[in-house]
């Protein structure tokens, strides 16, 4: 019984099993239903764009870390998640080189200029998407129908009279690759919730606010919930851990704020869709929200009289 080889480290001496790696790959698993739906609806284009975006994201991550003299941490899966997300966030006909460029911008300007994983204030995939929309407005708003790829408009542009609810729910409508099938998104979202990776407050606050506001404004709330990329963003992007508040109340505030901005853009803005900007703007407000929504600390404000 010698002493020499005992390990000494501060408590706690046991740790939870979960790691960043496991969380990121849970998100990938949670995206599988959407990937399958996108492939079913939009065929080879879905595979082409998601694979290109993912490869571009992962390669860019490695290059950025190399340039910054950081350890290469591709196995953490965060770059892959960004790649898949931006790949699912573009129209099916987007040219390959634009997809790659969007992904490169997402990882560089969205993530590594701020210091890499954990330090980015804005959702990298949405930064990439915003870049693409501003730079290549036409190809980024060129929509085609599922299966036969006929040029059309999105439900949000057409209005609620032009689309049937079942089409909106199952995704047989025009739109970005991942956003059309509410059914697939819900399956993925439920998985992520039970896996403990999705906090319910942001998606519920976001969707609930849109539901309430559109009802008050006399619009079709169900249509606004299912059309466009709201549901996809609520489950996979607004809930991104890095760029959203850490306090419980702050997460509600984030969701509600994004919902308000979205409705304002959709109803009064010149764009048909406002999901990207609603989340990016709330990302910017996140440090402030954290500051304003600190929980009451145990025992503070309690009088010292027995």
């Amino acid at each position, binding site marked *: 019984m010698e002493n020499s080889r005992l390990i*000494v480290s*501060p408590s*706690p*001496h046991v740790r*939870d099993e*979960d790691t960043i790696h496991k969380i990121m790959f849970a998100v990938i698993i949670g995206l599988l239903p959407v990937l399958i739906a996108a492939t079913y609806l939009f065929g080879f284009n879905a595979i082409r764009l998601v694979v290109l975006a993912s490869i571009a994201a992962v390669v860019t991550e490695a290059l950025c870390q190399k340039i910054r003299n950081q350890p290469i941490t591709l196995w953490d899966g965060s770059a892959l998640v960004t790649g898949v997300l931006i790949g699912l966030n573009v129209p099916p006909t987007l040219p390959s080189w634009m997809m790659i460029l969007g992904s490169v911008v997402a990882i560089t300007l969205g993530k590594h200029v701020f210091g890499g994983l954990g330090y980015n204030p804005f959702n990298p995939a949405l930064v990439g998407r915003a870049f693409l929309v501003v730079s290549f407005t036409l190809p980024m708003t060129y929509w085609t129908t599922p299966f036969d790829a006929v040029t059309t408009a999105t439900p949000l542009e057409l209005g609620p009279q032009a689309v049937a609810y079942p089409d909106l729910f199952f995704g047989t409508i025009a739109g970005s690759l991942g956003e059309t099938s509410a059914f697939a998104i819900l399956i993925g979202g439920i998985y992520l919730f039970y896996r403990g990776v999705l906090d319910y407050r942001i998606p519920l606050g976001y969707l609930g606010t849109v539901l309430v506001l559109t009802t008050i404004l006399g619009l079709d709330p169900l249509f606004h919930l299912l059309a466009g990329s709201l549901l996809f963003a609520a489950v996979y992007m607004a809930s991104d851990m890095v760029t959203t508040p*850490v306090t*419980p109340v702050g997460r509600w505030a984030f969701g509600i704020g994004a919902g308000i901005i979205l409705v304002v853009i959709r109803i009064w803005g010149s764009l048909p869709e406002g999901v990207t900007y609603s989340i990016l703007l709330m990302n910017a407000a996140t440090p402030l929200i954290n500051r304003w929504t600190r929980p009451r600390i145990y*025992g503070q404000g309690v009088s010292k009289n027995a």
Partner: protein
Amino acid sequence: MKKKTFRGGVHPEYAKDITAEKSIQDLPAPEMIVISLQQHIGAPVDSLVKKGDSVLMGQLIGNSSYAVSANVHSSVSGTVVAVEPRPHISGRSVISVVIKNDGQDNPCEMISHSDPIQLSPQEIKDKIKAAGIVGLGGAAFPTSIKLDPPDQANIDYLIINGSECEPYLTADDRMMVEEPADVILGAKLLAKGCGAERILIGIEENKPEAIRNMRDHAGSNAIEIVVLDTKYPQGGEKQMITALTGREVPSNGLPYQAGVIVQNVGTALATTQACRDGRALIDRVVTLTGAGIKEPRNYRIRLGTSFRVAIEAAGGFTAEPGKVIAGGPLMGSAQFDLDVPVMKGTSSILVFTKEDSKQFDPMPCIKCARCVDVCPASLLPVRLEAYSMNAMWDEALEYGAMDCIECGCCTYICPSKRFLLHWMRLAKNEIIVAKRRQTG
């Protein structure tokens, strides 16, 4: 039925089944005993003996004139061979009395009472003080001082903490299973000592036998056994108080300010032994457990027995050990020297194998906020860590660093394996040092 509990907390793997059925055995006192003169929170005591003195079992060998301190007694009879610094669980060397055991266990005079509940509150407190009893849950705060709150504060509840929320530990569980009558009597004595009208005994629901036995012996309706949700850190003093009474201990304050005093199961048992049998605190129940130990069990161990002797008695190591921890896996401290003695606050000797002793390189924080969700004090560990890393002590103070109870839930849950608690401790330390400097 929804069981009582508190905000936050985690559910680590409990691993209590290793020793939960193992009844308490007496570990024979070893040849050499090292009685540390710092076994409690507060000032170390002065040695009353010197090299060559012979001592009796239970004889007072260390006391102090400081208010916050606790008497120290010899746990065997024999001869003092040295009074010198020896390894201590804190990692430092602390002045200790080394006694060569003569194997006779000759006791010193003990004044017993057949019906100790007739003692006056002051007599009870005096006996507890004389016996050197401290909180046996691990914090080791002198019990007699805790029973004597300042400002004549009114105490409504005495709480006996039987939650034993740390994984692996089963010492309190076994005491409640095997010696419920003495634990209950101790609770009554402690309640009388502090003038509490009611006694609440909180036990986590994963100890059904303890709950049953304690209920069988509780008798009077002034004692209530409350079943609590199994969740760490249910046994945290503040968490216990809030779960049982709905009250909160004020920030920067003490439980008596909420009209509550909390004592541990082992402390209650020691109180019975002190008041009824006149016995000083010279042994305690220790859980020897973990995959690194051959025959895990619950031992009643004389204070001053080295970890090495205790581990050898439990069959020794299964393989080369990874960590040897004094206390539980969440709050215990890893030891580097097996010659450290079992002390009043040593609830467990936990031996991890090499595989159990995983070491992690921290990854970047992804702001998942799991640390925020599990913090029982409702702190933002993610912010506090950042402030501490950047030496922003004022901000750390403002964000409640001093309200941290150091339970380690944040570090336990962190998927990036960051050392959140470690940084928190640094911030607390810096804040205390700065305050001391200010007040001179």
